[in-house]
Structures are given as C-alpha cells and as structure tokens.
C-alpha cells in the first residue's frame, strides 16, 4: 500500500477495479469526508457520482469506481465504513451482479460527409440527438463506461468539440437491495 514508505509484501498484488456503493446521511460535509479520505490516504478515484436517493430519510448514494490491490480495496471499504455518517458500504464488484451505467453529452461539429457519418454512428450506438444546428449536434448517450469511451473515440476525427460525463451510477441486479 502506498501509505507507508516501507516496501510491503503485498505491493506485487495486481490492482483491481471495484465499484463501491456508499449509502450516507445527506448532511453537509459528507462528500468532503469521503473525498478527503481518498486524497488523504492516497487512494484512486476513477469515477464518483453522488446524489440524494431517499429524500425523507435524508440519504444519499455515492458510487465510487476505484482501483487498488485487494488489500487496498479492503482498506478503502473499512475506512469508508468507519466514517460516522456512512450507513453501509457495498462492493458491487464482489457481489458480482453489478449494473453500472453512465450518461454523456457529446458535442460534435462538422459538415458534409463527417456530419452524416456522425449521425449514422450515433444511431448505431443508440445515442439521441438533443440539440442540433446546421453545423453541430449534441448527442445524449447512456451505457457502460467503455461504450461511451468507444463512442467518444469515434467522434474524435468527426469533429468532437467537447463532452460531459456523469460518472458511473451502479446498482445490483435482482430483487434484493444492495
């Protein structure tokens, strides 16, 4: 682990990517606690999404995609779990039935053949056009992160201007709450 200077026995474990779902009290500073924990202890955040989920109970769900060796992932979960406003931490990757989706808005500028090609690809990826001018489109696309990566990559040479992603929202499959 990176938190100690000393060479550790487990440094050679290979890193894994995990999707964690953290249910927290929706109170001021709770996001700062979570983010501060990651920066303070040198953990990675690949994606972070937060929103209130149960208004009456003042609960928010924070979805974090992080990478680390199995020992670091275990640490991250334990560290999150001991924050006072945290209700529970669920490792959706370990439970094995993770549904993860992301939304992106992608602005593409172009004319002629490039414009037609962008529209055609948008169709193939089931992206919706949510704004259009004679020389531009804004696509809305949802899906797994790698699908969005791929679509953004394809738009690159076709006049990609900029794009915005929501980060991952995730939940477990099946009837049970995670």
């Amino acid at each position, binding site marked *: *682990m990176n938190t100690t200077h*000393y060479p550790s*026995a*487990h440094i050679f474990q290979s890193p894994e990517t995990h999707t964690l779902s953290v249910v927290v009290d929706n109170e001021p*500073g709770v996001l700062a606690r979570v983010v501060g924990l990651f920066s303070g202890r040198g953990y990675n955040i690949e994606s972070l999404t937060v929103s209130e989920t149960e208004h009456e109970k003042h609960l928010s769900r924070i979805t974090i995609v992080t990478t680390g060796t199995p*020992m670091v992932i275990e640490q991250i979960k*334990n560290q999150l779990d001991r924050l006072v406003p*945290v*209700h529970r931490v669920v490792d959706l990757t370990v439970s094995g039935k993770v549904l993860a989706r992301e939304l992106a808005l992608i602005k593409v500028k172009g004319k002629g053949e490039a414009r037609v090609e962008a529209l055609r690809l948008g169709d193939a990826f089931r992206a919706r056009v949510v704004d259009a001018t004679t020389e531009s489109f804004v696509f809305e696309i949802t899906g797994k992160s790698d699908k969005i990566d791929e679509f953004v990559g394809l738009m690159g040479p076709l006049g990609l201007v900029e794009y915005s992603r929501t980060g991952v929202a995730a939940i477990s499959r099946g009837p049970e709450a995670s």
Partner: protein
Amino acid sequence: MSRQMTGAEMVIAALQDQGVEVLFGYPGGSVLPIYDEIFKQEKIRHVLVRHEQGAVHAAEGYARSTGKVGAVLVTSGPGATNAVTGLTDALLDSIPLVCITGQVPTHLIGNDAFQECDTVGITRPCTKHNWLVKRIEDLPRILHEAFHVAKSGRPGPVVIDIPKDVQFATGTYHGPKNIQHKTYRPKVKGDMDAIRHAVQMIGKAHRPIFYTGGGVINSGPHASQLLRELVKTTGFPITSTLMGLGAYPGNDEQFLGMLGMHGTLEANMAMHESDLIICVGARFDDRITGRLDAFAPHAKKIHIDIDPSSINKIIKVDVPIVGDVGHVLEDMIRVWKQTQPTIDKAALQKWWDKIAVWRGRKCLAYRASDEIIKPQYAIQRLQEAVKGKDVYFTTEVGQHQMWAAQFLKFDEPNRWMTSGGLGTMGYGIPAAVGVQMAHPGSLVIDIAGEASVMMTMQEISTAVQYRLPIKIFILNNHYMGMVRQWQELLHGGRYSESYSEALPDFVKLADAMGGVGIRCEKPSELDAAIAEMIAVKKPVIFDCVVDPAENCFPMIPSGKAHNEMLFGEAVENIGDVIDEKGKMLV
C-alpha cells in the same frame, strides 16, 4: 428532562450531564457566551491554559490517566487552529476528547470575518468526527452524540463548532438519552468462531508471543486484568508497544519489555522467530514492524482490534477478531477454560530457553560513569526514588521518551502518558497538568528533553496558577537528541540545526515562573536532588545535565528487520549498517 435555555447554557448543561468535571480552555470573542455560563456555575472547573495546544494535551493527559473523556473549549480562528496539533495527537493515539470551538455568527460564515476559519474543514481529517451546529434545535443532540462518538468504539477526538448566534439563541434542552445512533454502531463483541479458532491456535503454538498495545489500556482496567489472566494461564511471553506499557506489569518475568525500533532485543527477536503472534489492541505500525517483508516470517497472526480498518492494513493476519479487547479476552478465557487446550510444555520451555539467551545479552546495558550523568542512569535513579509512590509519568518526544519507555517499569495501566503516533514534542508539560488536575494528590513527573520543553513551557504558568506540583525532569543534553542521533547514523555526523543554542537557565526560569528550579550535574548528587524534587510541593523544573553524546540503543535502523538491531557497543561501524534505501525512510 427538557428545559428552555440558551445555546451557551446547553453547552454547560450537557457537559455536566456527561459527567465532565474539568474543562481545559482559553476564552475569546466567539466563546464569550459560554464563558459567561462558566462564570455562573461551580460544578465544572475550568483550567485556563496558556495556549490552545496545551488545552488539548492537558485534556489528553486527563483522559488517558482517568479513562474519562477529556473536554476542551477554545475560541474560533486561531483558537481552533492552535488546537489542531493536539487533536491530531489524540486521533493517532485514540484518546477520547470533546473539543468545543466557538465560531463567528452564522450570517458571517464564509465572509472571512474576524477570527473566522473553516474549523470543520480544517479539523475533518484530524478528528474522529466533527459538527458545525447551525441551528439551536440540533445543539443538545449533537452535544450528547459527540460524547458517545468520542468514547465508544475506537476512541478519538471530536469537534463541535458552535457559531456565536447559536450560543445566544434559545431552545429546548434535553439530557442524554439512550438512543441508538442511526449509523454509528461500533462492534464490541468478537466473533465466537474466530475466538474459538484463535484459542485452538494458541493451544498448538510452540513459539508464541503476545504483542499488546494501547487498545488494552483504552478498553479499561478490566481488560488489563483479563490480559494478565490469559498471559499467566498460557505461560507465554508478552511484549508491548509504547502505548500499551502498564497493561501488563513491567517487572513480571513473562514481560520482555517494549518492542519495535527502540525495543529490547528479546522482544524483537521473539517476534521475529515466533510461530504465533497474538496481537491485542495494537496496529502493526511502522515503528513496530520495521521492514515489512521480513516481519515475523514464520508467524501466524491473530489480531484483536475494535477498528476493522486496522486489520490487514499493513500486515495480513490469519485470524482477525473485531471487537473490544475486554470483551474478546473475556470470551477467549472462557473458551480456554471450556476446551482446556494442552500446551506443549516442552516446546514452550525450549522457547523460553531461547529467550533467556537473548535476555542474557542485556541489550539495555550502558557504560556507567562517575563523572557525568548518563540519561539512562538518571531514569533508573528516578524510578528507584518513586518506588511505592502513587506516580504518573508523562513524556515529551525523543531520546528521553525512549529511555523512559525502556527503563521505567509500570505495574498498572493509565500511569504512562506519551505521544506515540504523532510524536508531538511539547506534549509532556500540558499532559502533566491534565494528569495532576485529575489526581491532585499523586506524584506527576514529565520526563523531558530540553528542546521539547521549550515548545510548551508556557504551561508551567498554568501549573503555578492551579497549584499543580508537576515535576519536569529534563534530561538536558543540549541537543535535539534523537535528531542528532539520526544525523550521526545517517548524515555523516553533520549536526544541522540540532544543537540547543541559547538555552534558558532553567533554575532561574522556574523561579521566574513561580516554581522551583533544581540543577544536577554530578551522578553523586543525583539521588539527593531527586529526593528534593519529590519533596517540594510546587511545580519543579529539574535540569538534569546529562552526557550529550549518549545514543539510544538498541535500535532497529529504518529499513531493517527485527533481527538486524544495533547496540551500544556497535557504535563505531554504525554508518555501514544503514543502506541508501534506509536513509529515505523516516
């Protein structure tokens, strides 16, 4: 019981309801309403420190020596930022504190108002939890919740930041209720299957060792009793971290002394060669483990800790038991009695024979002198002089702290207050103030270095004001000794900025501050001088002038393993022992 009262009144009511008897603090603009309430009551004694860092360390000393929650009150802005070192210290050593900070009125928050700072933002990483109370309706709940969070589970410091308008506002106060916190529920009972498994492993071990830490002390005196019972029943050797000293009697045959960077040869070698480590309330930190890939290579590990995040953080363990040390030990002893495991006596005897050889090397030996006081000798004479007395020790940080840990023998928990995790120079004097407040009739001694003392010596004035006869026993070597030692070992003897230039005359200083100063420079005069120090019923600064060249051994150099220790005799070729990689480590 619910009553209408102001926020400031609620603070005092809640402190009283939570059993707070002593409050360490310093007034300022945004806590004046609370100070006004302090003025009007007599139940809580307020100790006026000279710097907010001192208030927090004093509360730590109070908490550590009583097992109660320490209480602190400081103002906004600089009051809060000055408290940060103490809060971090308490977090790393798991000391329960409630620190109340004043804040500018809510409508001024975020405006860079006079003496405003983002207290909850600044203290978020150095507290177990913190709150900014913006509504009077939330104040009573948060006050009681704060005490619950501070003292339960793994204890730690909490901060309640209260804007001045909330202190003036009126609301309904209610006393502490036994409501379950909606998210925070620390686990105290250990998993029974894990405990049974652990007892089985203990029964089968051939070269076992107990490795115990501050968690035993935090669990209360009962846990120390249970530990003693288990260690006696098994007949196993036991070693302790710096924070755990006193949980097991220091003079007992089975006690191998402290382990780690400045631990004894027998403790470190026993860890290195053991086949089972039973870690009780300790956390495998870097001062203990040394080089991780060479740490206890043959040992299976059982780890008892109340904090799940301590487990598998640094060292992967075989049997983790999450729970309070007291509860877990109680269950372990019960299972032990039920199952009656048969210990391999012959193997254990062989193990003890091996340990006897390491012990025989007398790793703490030093060259005595008639001319100059050796720091180790001074501590030994001090220990001799306080024998049979009701005594508490605090320390600063550095060589003197390690010598104190090596040479003092504690029979009881809560008698040893030191800054372990954070290593805060300047901890000892204010901590002694806190200890003496809690134990007015006891002897409280701060074993100090002349450099550390200079960091918080204004608190001598606090001791004088409250007639606290603390003894500041300075091992004066005119160096930041541990810095100098590392410079000697790692940086070619270039003593960059580690000489204590322009030291005050400590005897005159004591006099000027209203205490008593004693200086001793000769070994032959030491006993009489110590006797005088103990006899004086005032704060004493004892300037014990010691050998400036003495180093603290044994030592595991950074980047080395438990079986690669340095000893006093090996001083000449010490430069070769630490490689380039080791120099990078702290």
